[in-house]
């Protein structure tokens, strides 16, 4: 009998550290470190921490595959230090000495990345270098888009802030091979433009979602032409930004202020000007991506487009391409952020380097931790909360939702990627607009303009939303679709200002329990949708039952449907959250990560297996 081939993919160079493990070409597990260390995006993207590996994620992957570290055959790391080092020096007119863009900063980043195999060897307890492969960042993004897509052949578009030096990668994939056609390099970066704009608009480093939501409120034409003072693109695959105006590597906005007026401080009011800038940025992004896709269509001759990279998470742009590009079908990698490069690293090795012809189709993101009912029952009992087992929990939950209750929904394996898709979700009735206000203000603590997504029965999606063709990636909440005119007023809690709604299509095969819940809700209300927002509050999406309880108590969510148990937390606020954390009840489950580890502890864990 042939030995199974195990490939571990790791992303760690910048942010969103993650791990993915595939067995004979099939994903066994994929998780982001942020879910375990409870730090948003896992760690800040900076030159001092590429060697801080997603240790808990790696450990989880090994446990899920029931293997030891020594059983891994290949390790793919989604970054090539040499490709970045000297290219990033001397580009920016302004930079901070010792930081990215300076020689010393780039040198530090280079050596800390180069130290990754050694760090991993230390953790695993053996020399991993023979198994270790460096794979460029965008090759990993591109692989995560194409190799797991439903396409035999496809154009590939990967766009993010920066890989090693490239920010946009264009190529094509056929069967088990991908190849580059063209790339765009720093500082010509759509992703970094959004990062800078996010800071300029007072939303911080990771406010791109906020800009996307706000853009619906603004007039896209007010500042559209202004962007062309420093940006250009065409249908020949070119995209450029004047780096002196972008000022990416310094925290200054003097050049932007000449074009857009004074920058907004974090707590300043959102004014019309901010809405208009956001709208123009969204329009520019749509148009730029459309131009690049037209170029790819021309040079590849494929009718399919596979997308990855952070820009791929712009659901407004993805829908724009879906409705306006010449491509017939589009697949977007559900973890298009840097976390997804761990998946790409695995498949670049499996298909491209190892030459395996078999392709894996990624139809699901339920690739993370799972907690059996007896473990859940144990922790609920220990916590002293009121709960009851329900054979058909979806029926009870549907009734609660119909009565206007907000329900936290924790089921099965945790999702991989930034979207909660019905296993770590907070749910509400989409007909009740006041619940959208309530969720934004009291639970999620978000701005008024942030829209809510909807989960919809796959077979009913075309009755409620407009689209040229439903994509497989609609399962992953990656397209913002237009609500059909006659339905607009019926689901105000999930209808955005521009009549759009980010949707997740749900079928029975992918998520049986969630599908049944939607069916039950439809039976009561004639509405086959639910408002679905991620189960968290200004923190990473929750991972464990303990996280679920903590979050519910913190933000005062009364109902938690966890496994087959319905928990009524009406009196749970009496329990001190701190006491909860201090108790840290050890689960019987092997998937309990509610403890702090350091390198030494991890070495012991890995070696003892």
């Amino acid at each position: 009998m042939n030995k199974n081939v195990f490939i571990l993919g790791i992303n760690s160079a910048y942010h969103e550290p993650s791990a993915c493990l595939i067995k004979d070409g099939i994903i066994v597990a994929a998780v982001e470190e942020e879910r375990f260390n409870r730090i948003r995006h896992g760690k800040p993207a900076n030159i001092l921490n590429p060697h801080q590996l997603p240790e808990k994620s790696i450990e989880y992957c090994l446990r899920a595959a029931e293997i030891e570290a020594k059983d891994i055959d290949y390790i793919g790391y989604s970054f090539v230090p040499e490709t970045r080092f000297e290219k990033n020096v001397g580009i920016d007119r302004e930079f901070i000495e010792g930081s990215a863009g300076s020689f010393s900063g780039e040198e530090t980043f280079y050596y800390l990345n180069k130290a990754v195999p050694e760090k991993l060897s230390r953790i695993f307890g053996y020399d991993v270098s023979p198994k270790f492969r460096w794979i460029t960042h965008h090759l990993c993004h591109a692989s995560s888009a194409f190799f797991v897509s439903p396409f035999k052949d496809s154009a590939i578009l990967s766009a993010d802030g920066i890989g090693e030096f490239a920010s946009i990668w264009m190529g094509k994939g056929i069967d088990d091979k991908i190849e580059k056609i063209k790339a765009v390099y720093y500082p010509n970066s759509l992703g970094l433009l959004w990062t800078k704009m996010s800071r300029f608009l007072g939303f911080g480093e990771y406010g791109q979602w906020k800009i996307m939501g706000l853009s619906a409120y603004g007039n896209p034409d007010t500042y559209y032409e202004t962007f062309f003072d420093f940006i250009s693109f065409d249908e020949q695959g070119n995209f450029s930004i004047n780096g002196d105006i972008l000022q990416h590597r310094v925290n200054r906005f003097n050049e932007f202020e000449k074009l857009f007026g004074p920058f907004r401080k974090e707590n300043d009011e959102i004014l019309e000007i901010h809405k208009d800038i956001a709208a123009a940025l969204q329009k520019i992004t749509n148009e730029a991506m459309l131009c690049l896709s037209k170029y790819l269509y021309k040079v590849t001759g494929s009718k399919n487009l596979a997308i990855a990279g952070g820009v791929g998470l712009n659901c407004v742009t993805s829908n724009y391409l879906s409705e306006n590009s010449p491509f017939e079908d589009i697949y977007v990698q559900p973890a298009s952020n840097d976390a997804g490069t761990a998946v790409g690293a695995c498949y670049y090795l499996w298909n491209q380097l190892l030459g395996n012809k078999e392709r894996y189709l990624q139809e699901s993101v339920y690739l993370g931790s799972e907690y059996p009912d007896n473990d859940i029952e144990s922790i609920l009992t220990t916590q002293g909360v009121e709960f009851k087992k329900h054979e058909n929990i979806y029926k009870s939950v549907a009734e609660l939702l119909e009565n206007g209750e907000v329900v936290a929904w924790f089921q099965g394996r945790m999702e991989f990627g930034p979207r909660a898709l019905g296993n770590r979700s907070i749910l509400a009735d989409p007909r009740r607009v006041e619940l959208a206000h309530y969720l934004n203000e009291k639970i999620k603590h978000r701005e008024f303009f942030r829209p809510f997504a909807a989960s919809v029965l796959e077979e009913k999606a075309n009755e409620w939303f407009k689209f040229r063709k439903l994509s497989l990636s609609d399962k992953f909440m990656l397209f913002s679709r237009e609500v059909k005119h006659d339905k607009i007023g019926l689901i105000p809690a999930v209808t955005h200002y521009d009549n759009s709604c980010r949707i997740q299509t749900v079928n029975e095969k992918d998520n049986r329990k969630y599908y049944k819940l939607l069916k039950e809700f439809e039976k009561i209300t004639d509405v086959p949708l639910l408002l679905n927002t991620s189960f968290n509050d200004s923190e990473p999406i929750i991972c464990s039952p303990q996280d679920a309880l903590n979050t519910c108590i913190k933000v005062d969510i009364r109902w938690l449907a966890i496994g087959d148990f319905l928990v009524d937390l009406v009196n749970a606020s009496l329990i001190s959250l701190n006491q909860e954390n201090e108790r840290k009840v050890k689960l019987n489950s092997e998937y309990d990560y509610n403890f702090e580890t350091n390198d030494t502890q991890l070495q012991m864990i890995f070696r003892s297996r």
Partner: protein
Amino acid sequence: MLIKQNKKVHIDIGPEIVKMYECSGQVHSVFDFANNNKEILKKTEASIIEKNLIMLQKKESIPDYLNKCLARTDDLKINDNIFELKRSGARSAYWEDRRIKFKGCRPMVKNPATFPIEKLGFGSDVIEYDSIPFGILTKEAVLREILGFCFFKEKELEIVHKPICIYEYCKDNEQVGYCIVFETMGETRLEQFVNYPQLTLKELIEIKFQRLKTTYLLGSELLLNGVNVKRCSEAKAKILTEMHFSGGFRGILNSNIGNDIILKEASFEFAICDFDCFRVISIPKQPDIAFLNGFVMYCLIEVLKGSISILEFYQFNENLSLTEYNKVLFEKYTQTSSIWKAYERMFWIKAKEQGWDISLVNDAFENILKTKSFFQIQSLVIPNNKAIDDIVNLRNIYYSHD
């Protein structure tokens, strides 16, 4: 449970298509009418009309087809010429082809009727109940409509109704009421889209307490078929805050979203109308608490009354102070109303832009919650047992209309 759908209304609003008769009276140009009568308004209001006279239509601009008095009743008819128009509310008519609206064109000389109204003086805490002749406008009401138009033009706010002329209905050479004729950019009212459950108060209470299985969303705003509530709320809040912070108020409106107009072909998509009770107050640079009490009350009652209805009956199970009653209802309203959410955000932006003392504005909000009049207005939006008790005990009349 079967809900009875037949409703009694106090006033017969008439059939969908109404007959229009040529009748006795005079046709005035807007310019002349405003210029000759503006002094019956307050000085500040008259000066707004004076400054904007140039915007008003003169006699020679009145089209021939309007240069004769037209009315929905035959009480004053002078010949047998009749033509048919669409009904618009209980007292108006709409000439759809020409986009002409006749407001107050139902003189009821043979069977006069009155219509109840509520008034609240600026800075006052007492709602006054009064009645006005039904079917027509008074001279002051016409002037206030013109004032609203001038005010909106002066502040560069969007307005859909442009006054064209005024009919002064006469019987035996005595004036019996006025009608103002508008050219309008659209007459599609937001309330037309309400997914209205048509519940009586009794039925609402039954649903609430018997927990009957219905498809009604108790505690929620009514749904609006085909209308994006976020978009409308933002648009309405923007107009109202601009208007209020420039000193303009429409008072206690009869209808909540019946005066909101949705437009399809204009450069803007939302507008408000109904200015027959419009008044303008002067806004001081640094208002004191007395002014702010009045200002906040005026803002709140207009927004409250102009909000999408909340399908709710609130049951107070204990005796509370007036302030506590108000707080409970206001919390429910502010948590639920989309228009309030948008308005509140813009209100504070405006207040800060004006450089007002924010702590004083907050105090004014607190003070409003101590007033009986605010409870009365809130009870119109969220029916409750306390308000019904007051009615039963004849202490007050809150539910004066349907």
